């Protein structure tokens, strides 16, 4: 059936930042299919040049209000690798804990407040509160727990204060950790109810094979550090990230695109699920089974389901870390002092939306000489467009409204954090 279609969704709502979807089809043939990024560039890499290394994590956490802990952590890891700073076990545990908190915070925001309204056919979480009040109250409760967890460790979630090179400027008390643990135990029920709710929702059916990339570690579901790993095979040190990401500019986007072996690859919860399934907590594996997903899952809409799996994993992971911290106690530690010798280093983390790289060169004066950040959404843009090109011909005969909703839901499933993706990397000049 001949179909003409013109879709131009200006400023997709319920995604972080500013993106436009443009689709043009004539006589049933797809002519154009783009995700435009119109967010204003923010130039973070340039902002860092010449600043003291101590400021980097505080400046870069301002790239994204949702992934503030993730940016701070990747930034600190880059600095710590550059300066050869070793971390104590206590610092690792506290960073793991705050990371679980941010993962939970971001995923609950995305699945309940930004994705669920589509399933209920309402425009936002505010009318959702009328049709599914319990669900919204549950989301607010879990989000508050996650935010409070981050605040206990970092002082606040959006732009943590206490995270610093080599450790923390403030430590929580064992009593605070115990109180968190109790609330995390109660959150198990909220996780069960979350699975019950989302497994009954009408998840769109669509499949497209692609390459999935995530950090991986020998014995754990990697969030901080690890080796870059692909479902197409292969594993690389994070210092080789540029051979994976191959960033390039496209004119319709102020965010750089990436590609590896195929035309595009995907990062984020679904990619981590596909790469690191074996290391999920048993309860998280059970959640995946209930949600009807197993690796390798190639339905991008299931990125949100993978986020629910990771919420379960994060609650369990946080409980385990709390147990360890309670058992070993919290001890004051000597702060790191600069040796007067600079260096270069890469830090990589799995933030809620995928792999994040910070790459710094620090001078002997302690000032940043060069900086490069590669954020997850930039890596996913090419893959989103590839999905759109595969999806639209399959649903073209359903009419403009349905196609529009399907595309909006697709873009939202990736949880794109567009404000982060528009800040960009340093291009080296010769």
């Amino acid at each position, binding site marked *: 059936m001949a179909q003409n279609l013109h879709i131009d969704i200006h400023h997709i*709502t319920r995604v972080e930042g500013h993106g436009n979807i443009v689709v043009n089809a004539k006589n049933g043939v797809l002519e154009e299919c783009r995700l435009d990024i119109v967010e204003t560039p923010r130039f973070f890499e340039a902002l860092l040049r010449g600043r003291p290394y101590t400021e980097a994590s505080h400046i870069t956490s301002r*790239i994204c*209000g949702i992934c503030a802990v993730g940016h701070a952590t990747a930034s600190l890891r880059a600095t710590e690798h550059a300066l050869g700073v070793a971390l104590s076990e206590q610092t690792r545990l506290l960073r793991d804990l705050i990371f679980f908190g941010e993962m939970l915070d971001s995923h609950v925001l995305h699945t309940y407040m930004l994705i669920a309204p589509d399933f209920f056919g309402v425009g936002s979480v*505010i009318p959702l509160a009328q049709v599914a009040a319990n669900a919204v109250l549950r989301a607010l409760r879990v*989000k508050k727990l996650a935010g409070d967890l981050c605040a206990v460790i970092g002082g606040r979630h*959006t*732009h943590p204060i206490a995270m610093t090179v080599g450790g923390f400027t403030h430590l929580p008390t064992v009593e605070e950790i115990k109180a968190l643990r109790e609330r995390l135990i109660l959150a198990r029920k909220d996780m069960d109810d979350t699975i019950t709710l989302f497994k009954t929702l009408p998840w769109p059916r669509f499949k497209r094979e692609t390459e999935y990339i995530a950090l991986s570690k020998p014995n754990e579901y990697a969030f901080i550090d690890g080796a870059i790993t692909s479902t197409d095979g292969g594993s690389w040190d994070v210092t080789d990230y540029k051979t994976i990401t191959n960033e390039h500019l496209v004119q319709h986007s*102020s965010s750089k695109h990436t590609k590896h072996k195929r035309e595009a690859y995907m990062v984020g919860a679904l990619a981590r699920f596909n790469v690191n399934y074996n290391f999920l907590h048993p309860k998280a594996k059970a959640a995946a089974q209930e949600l009807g997903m197993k690796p390798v899952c190639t339905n991008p809409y299931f990125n949100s389901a993978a986020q629910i799996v990771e919420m379960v994993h994060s609650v369990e992971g946080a409980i385990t870390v709390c147990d360890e911290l309670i058992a070993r106690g919290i001890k004051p530690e000597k702060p790191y002092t600069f040796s007067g010798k600079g260096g270069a280093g890469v830090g990589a983390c799995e933030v809620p939306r995928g792999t994040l790289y910070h790459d710094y060169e620090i001078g002997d004066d302690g000032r940043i000489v060069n900086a490069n950040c590669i954020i997850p959404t930039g890596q996913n843009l090419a893959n989103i467009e590839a999905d759109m090109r595969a999806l639209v011909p399959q649903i073209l005969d359903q009419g403009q409204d349905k196609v529009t909703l399907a595309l909006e839901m697709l873009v939202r499933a990736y949880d794109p954090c567009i*404000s982060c993706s528009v800040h960009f990397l340093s291009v080296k000049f010769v």
Partner: protein
Amino acid sequence: MKPQVAFFDFTSCEGCQLTVVDSLQTHLDLLDMVEIVQFREAMSERGEDYAVAFIEGSITRESDEARLKEIRERAAVLVALGACAHIGGVNAIKNLAPLHDVRKYVYGERAEWFATYAARPISAVVKVDAFIPGCPIDREEFIRVVNALLRGIKPPIPDYPMCVECKLKENVCLFDKGGDCLGAITRAGCGAICPTYGDGCEGCRGLIPNPNRDSMQSVLAARGLTPQDVMARMTMFGSYEISKA
């Protein structure tokens, strides 16, 4: 009819809008008092004309100005939400270097594709009726300001320095712990949260009225900071003020 409230963002990290969402966790009653008509971050519905428009983010390109002016025309009260909108915030760090270098560093030979100009607070473009400082804003302060605006009174934003608040909390001063801090010239109201968590105030809430910047700088210099480090401290959030002067 409930007053219509809207949120808009320009160049920002959206952390202030997220803080607004988080403030609803403990103040759900707010949703009974106002009707939110524009909140792109969390809604698909769109409305018109606003009793209060909150603006997050700095203005960083010429094409932003028309949109901001249009919002101004439609808003009875316009509020700067957070440091980016209030004082330029971290976005204005780029104003310290030549714009061309900044663009070229990030976008290379494609620099011309991406429009940008010196980052500025929204008050550089339109009249602003009130501001909520901070990077990010403080949740409770947000609620207090909304309540005041709905009752038509001046929002209760402190104009005394952070040190007052910090001493009340009985924190050990960073200067006594070998650190440094901008508390003496920074507007209070965040509960001195950074010193409380062991880190010096970075000045995200902006300067108090009539700050003694010179004496602040000599205190920092006496602490052993190089002139470059002193400049770095003063410009994390204060770049717009300083690059303008």
